[in-house]
């Protein structure tokens, strides 16, 4: 299988008053077409910086990212970011948000928006404003807005971390259900090892700053996965031991 996303020796540091802070210290990995890769690492290790670089919002000091073999040059609708903070536009209705990414004059904007509103379970809320929705519903809007443009890649930066535990779990199942229908290439940043095991095909463990790839785990289990299965628990234990736990 050819690599959808390839990172080659990515390095990044930020200037501070005490000299440069080396955040990423040479990261290489690839993500295959249709593969779901989760990236876990200690907090502050530069996971988000790495994702911003891969998604095209930041530039590495050294090394390069290619998507479909072409050098990454700024953000593109080919890969949509879903972040923890959320970026649903509060001045637009749910439906207007979903139609936002559909550029040009196409007659099917509304139909597409309504279709994806239904996919994520937002039917009936299309005319509402985001501030009238609660956290889980907002996440659904953001997910649907990304899906509407049929991105090849989904970049998820702790997308469910701001939700309460139950809603977060619910959304995890929703995302898995949608991914089973529309196969996207996925990169998930998370600090939740269980979430990573539940969702990903492969888990990359990053080291503390300046971060490098510390270990890689395959997750060769079919969906739906049962997290209580001994093999899962064993996998979780070996990932946690990478963090010294």
């Amino acid at each position, binding site marked *: 299988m050819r690599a959808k996303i390839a990172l080659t020796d990515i390095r990044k540091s930020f200037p501070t008053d005490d000299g440069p802070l080396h955040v990423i210290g040479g990261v290489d990995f690839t993500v295959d077409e249709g593969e779901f890769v989760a990236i876990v690492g200690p907090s502050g290790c530069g996971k988000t910086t790495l994702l911003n670089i891969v*998604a095209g*919002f930041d530039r590495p000091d050294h090394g390069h990212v290619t998507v479909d073999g072409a050098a990454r040059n*700024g*953000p*593109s*609708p080919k890969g*949509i*970011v879903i*972040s923890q*903070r*959320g*970026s649903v*536009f*509060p*001045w*637009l209705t749910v439906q207007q948000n979903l139609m*936002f*990414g559909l*550029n040009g004059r196409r007659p099917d904007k509304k139909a597409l928006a309504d279709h994806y509103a239904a996919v994520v379970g937002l039917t009936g809320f299309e005319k509402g*404003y*985001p*501030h009238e929705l609660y956290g889980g519903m907002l996440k659904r809007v953001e997910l649907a807005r990304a899906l509407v*443009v049929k991105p090849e890649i989904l970049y998820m930066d702790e997308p469910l971390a701001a939700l309460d535990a139950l809603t977060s779990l619910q959304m995890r199942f929703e995302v898995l259900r949608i991914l089973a229908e529309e196969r996207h290439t996925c990169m998930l940043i998370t600090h939740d090892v269980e979430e990573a095991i539940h969702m990903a095909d492969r888990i990359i463990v990053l080291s503390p700053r300046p971060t490098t790839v510390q270990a890689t785990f395959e997750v060769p289990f079919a969906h739906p996965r049962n997290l209580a299965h001994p093999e899962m628990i064993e996998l979780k234990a070996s990932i946690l031991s990478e963090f010294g736990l």
Partner: protein
Amino acid sequence: MGKLKQIVAPLAVAAMLVAVWWIAVVASESVIFPTPLQVVTGTLELARDGTLWNHIGASLFRVGAGFLLAIAAGVPLGLLMGWVSGAFSTLNPIVQILRPISPIAWIPIAILWFGVGDLSPIFLIFLSSVFPTIVQTAAAVHAIERQYIWAAENFGVSRYKLFLQVVIPAALPQIIVGMRVSLGVAWLVVVAAEMIALRSGLGYLIIDSRNAGNRYDLVVAGMVIIGLTGLLLDGAMRRLERLKSVRWRYAR
């Protein structure tokens, strides 16, 4: 209950202030400072012969014209300064130099350029409200949270759509706050601006009542009417904050 409280409490404070004023005038046996009753009588006299409405209309027209010109010039300029960093570094020093110059200082120049008709007060009101509008609009654009800009860029929208559908609506709630401030300032300087007005306006009423026979009842009447009109104008501006597309920004 809450609604009633909102009306009753400020009315009670106002009534108390009027009472203190009245008692103070009576107790000091002042012959020149008017009692509230004299102010009301003076106001009714002006209302009956129609001049009051002319003064209010003239002032509202000048403030409206000056304010709208300030919005028409200040909002686009503020958006430009907020969005294009080169425009900000070029224009901000000039704005900051012109901003603290009182409209009163401009009066001689206003007369020189525009004479003593309606244009001079409109120009002075424009000057007083255009700078707060520019500064607040630029600040509103600077305060746009990065995640919204990123999300728009992620969807590959054109610069035009980014500006129209993200930058402006994201900044709009704070721009409206800026417009409220600017309208307040515009109304504040109406008296100064109308010091050079010909025979109309609340500012003219105040200056003229003092000069022509020490009619302090009309001086105070003009002040009270300016205050009450200011309250109504602010109330009208606040209605803008209730629009659904800007409500998200205000906590209450």
